[in-house]
C-alpha cells in the first residue's frame, strides 16, 4: 500500500515538478508570476489532441509539432504582451494581471473549440499496469517518471554547461549586472519562455496519455507548479523537483488518509504554511524586497 502511494506520488510529482521547472525558469528571469503558463500547458495537450485525434497525423509528428507550437505560443505571449509592458515600466503586478487575462482568454478559447467534456490522448482501454513489488504502474506512467527525470537532467546540463544556460543563470541572478556585462536580457527571456513552455507542453501531453484532459487542467497544474516552486524554493532546479515530489506525496498521503476531494485544500494548506514560515522554501534564494 505504502509502495503504491510512493509510486503514485512519484508519477504525479514528476508532472508537478516539470510544471514547476518551466514556471520557475521563467520566473527566474522575468520576476513575475506568469500565470498564463497554465494555459500554455493546456494548449500542449489540446494541440496534440487536435493533431492526433482530429487530423489523424502520425503520433511522433504530432508530438513534435505540438511541443514546438506550444513553445512558440509562450514566446508569442512574451513578445506580444510582456515585453511591451516591460518597456512601459510595468510593475510585476501589472504583468501578473495581464497574465491572468491571457490565461482566461486561452482557456476559454480551448473550451469553446473543444468543449468542456473530458478528452484523452489514450487510445484504447485503460491498462491495468505492470506489477512491481506489489505496486501497479502502467507503461505510460513509467514513461512519465523517466521522461521527467531526463528533462530535469537535460535542463540542468543546459543551464550549467551551455553558453545560453549560463546567460540565463546570469540574468536570473542579477539582471542589472547582466545588462552591464552586455547580455541581451530580452533574448535570454525569450529562451526561458521557449524552454519553459516546451516543458509545460511535455508535462501536459504525458499526463493526458495517463488520465483525462479538460480545459481547466492547466489551472490546476499551474497551481500545483506554483506551490511546488514555493516549497522547493524560487530559483532552484532541485527545489522544483523536490517541491513537485513532496507535493505529490502529500496529496497521495492525504488522499489515502482523508478523502481525495480535499487534495486541493491540502496542497494549498501546505502552500500557506510555507509562505508563512518558510517563504524561501527549501533551497530558495531570498526574494529581494524593495531597493531602497
Amino acid at each position: 500500500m505504502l509502495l503504491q502511494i510512493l509510486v503514485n506520488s512519484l508519477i504525479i510529482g514528476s508532472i508537478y515538478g516539470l510544471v514547476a521547472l518551466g514556471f520557475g525558469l521563467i520566473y527566474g528571469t522575468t520576476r513575475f508570476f506568469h500565470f498564463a503558463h497554465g494555459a500554455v500547458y493546456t494548449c500542449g495537450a489540446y494541440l496534440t489532441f487536435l493533431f492526433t485525434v482530429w487530423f489523424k497525423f502520425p503520433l511522433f509528428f504530432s508530438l513534435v509539432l505540438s511541443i514546438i507550437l506550444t513553445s512558440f505560443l509562450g514566446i508569442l505571449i512574451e513578445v506580444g504582451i510582456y515585453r511591451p509592458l516591460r518597456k512601459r515600466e510595468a510593475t510585476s503586478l501589472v504583468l501578473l494581471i495581464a497574465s491572468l487575462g491571457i490565461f482566461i482568454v486561452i482557456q476559454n478559447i480551448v473550451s469553446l473549440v473543444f468543449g468542456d467534456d473530458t478528452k484523452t490522448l489514450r487510445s484504447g482501454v485503460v491498462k491495468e499496469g505492470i506489477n512491481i513489488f506489489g505496486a501497479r504502474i502502467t507503461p505510460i506512467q513509467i514513461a512519465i517518471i523517466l521522461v521527467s527525470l531526463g528533462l530535469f537532467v537535460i535542463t540542468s546540463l543546459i543551464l550549467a554547461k551551455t553558453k545560453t544556460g549560463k546567460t540565463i543563470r546570469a540574468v536570473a541572478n542579477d539582471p542589472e549586472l547582466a545588462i552591464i556585462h552586455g547580455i541581451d536580457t530580452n533574448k535570454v527571456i525569450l529562451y526561458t519562455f521557449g524552454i519553459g513552455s516546451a516543458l509545460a507542453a511535455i508535462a501536459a501531453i504525458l499526463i493526458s496519455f495517463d488520465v483525462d484532459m479538460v480545459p481547466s487542467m492547466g489551472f490546476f497544474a499551474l497551481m500545483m507548479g506554483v506551490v511546488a516552486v514555493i516549497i522547493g524554493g524560487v530559483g532552484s532546479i532541485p527545489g522544483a523537483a523536490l517541491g513537485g515530489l513532496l507535493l505529490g506525496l502529500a496529496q497521495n498521503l492525504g488522499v489515502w488518509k482523508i478523502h481525495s476531494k480535499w487534495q486541493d485544500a491540502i496542497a494549498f494548506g501546505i502552500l500557506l504554511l510555507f509562505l508563512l514560515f518558510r517563504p524561501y522554501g527549501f533551497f530558495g534564494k531570498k526574494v529581494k524586497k524593495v531597493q531602497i
Partner: protein
Amino acid sequence: MNYLFHILILIFIYIIISVSLNLISGYAGLISVAHAAFYGIGAYVVALLALNIGSGFIVNMICGMLLAGILGAIIAIPSLRIHDDYFVIATFGFQIIVFSILNNWVTLTKGPLGIPGIPQPIILGISISSHVQFLIFTGFFALLTFLFARRLVNSPFGRVLKAIREDEIFAEALGKNVTKYKILVFVIGASMAAVAGSLYAWYITFIDPTSFTVQESIFMLSIVIIGGTGNLWGSVLGAALLITIPEALRFLGMPSAIAANTRQILYGTLLVIFMLYRPQGLLGEFAFRRK
C-alpha cells in the same frame, strides 16, 4: 421590467463588491484573488444561521462580516510580511481552501448541492421579497457602503492609503505603520464583501459553491481594474459595465454555453488591453507604480 430590476439588483451587489475590493487592491495596492471567498463566507453564514438557528437578518449579516473580517486578518497578518507578489499567491491559496471547504464539508454546507430556501429578511413586518423591494434594499446597502468607503478614502486615513500605494517606503519613513494599514484595509474590504454575500443569499434564496470560485474572484478583480483603481466611481462604472454587457449578450440570444466562455474571453481580453494601454482603468487616477 422585472428583468431590468434583476440587473440593477445584481449591479448594486457588485458595486459593494467592487468598492470593497477597490479599497484593498486599488487604494492600498494589494492584489487579492480571495474576494469571492469572503463574499461566499457572507452568503453561507447568513444562510446557515437563518436555517439552523433562526436568528434575525441583521445579526446574521454581522456574524458573516465578523467571520470574514477575522479570517481576513488571519490571512493578511502573516502574508504581508512577505513580498507583495507572494501575497497574491496567499490569497489564491485562501480562496481555493475556502471553496474546497464550501464544496466538500458536506455536513456543514451541503456541498455541491447547495443550500436552498434561504429565508428573506423581514423589516418591521414586511418581508423583502419582490424585485422592487430588493431593489430598494440592495440599493440602500450599496449607497451605504459607497458613502462609507468615500469617507474613508477622503480622510487622512485615505491619504495614508494613497501614500502606501504610490511609495510605501516614503510612507514608512514618515512614520506610518504601513503593514497595519494594509491589514486594516484588507479586513474592512473582506467584511464589506460579506455584506454583498448576505444580500446575494437573501435575493436568490439559493447558494452553492459555484458562485464563489477563483474565476469569480478574478472577475471581481477585473471589475475593479477596468473600472479604475483608486476611484470609487470607477468601481460603480466597472460593476455596471461588466454586469450589463454579458447580460446583453445573453439577451441577444447567444446560447448560454457559449455565453459563459465569451463573457470570460471578453473580460480576459479587456484585462490585457487595459494593462497595455490604460493600466489605471477607465476612471482610475493611478497606474500601479514602480517602487
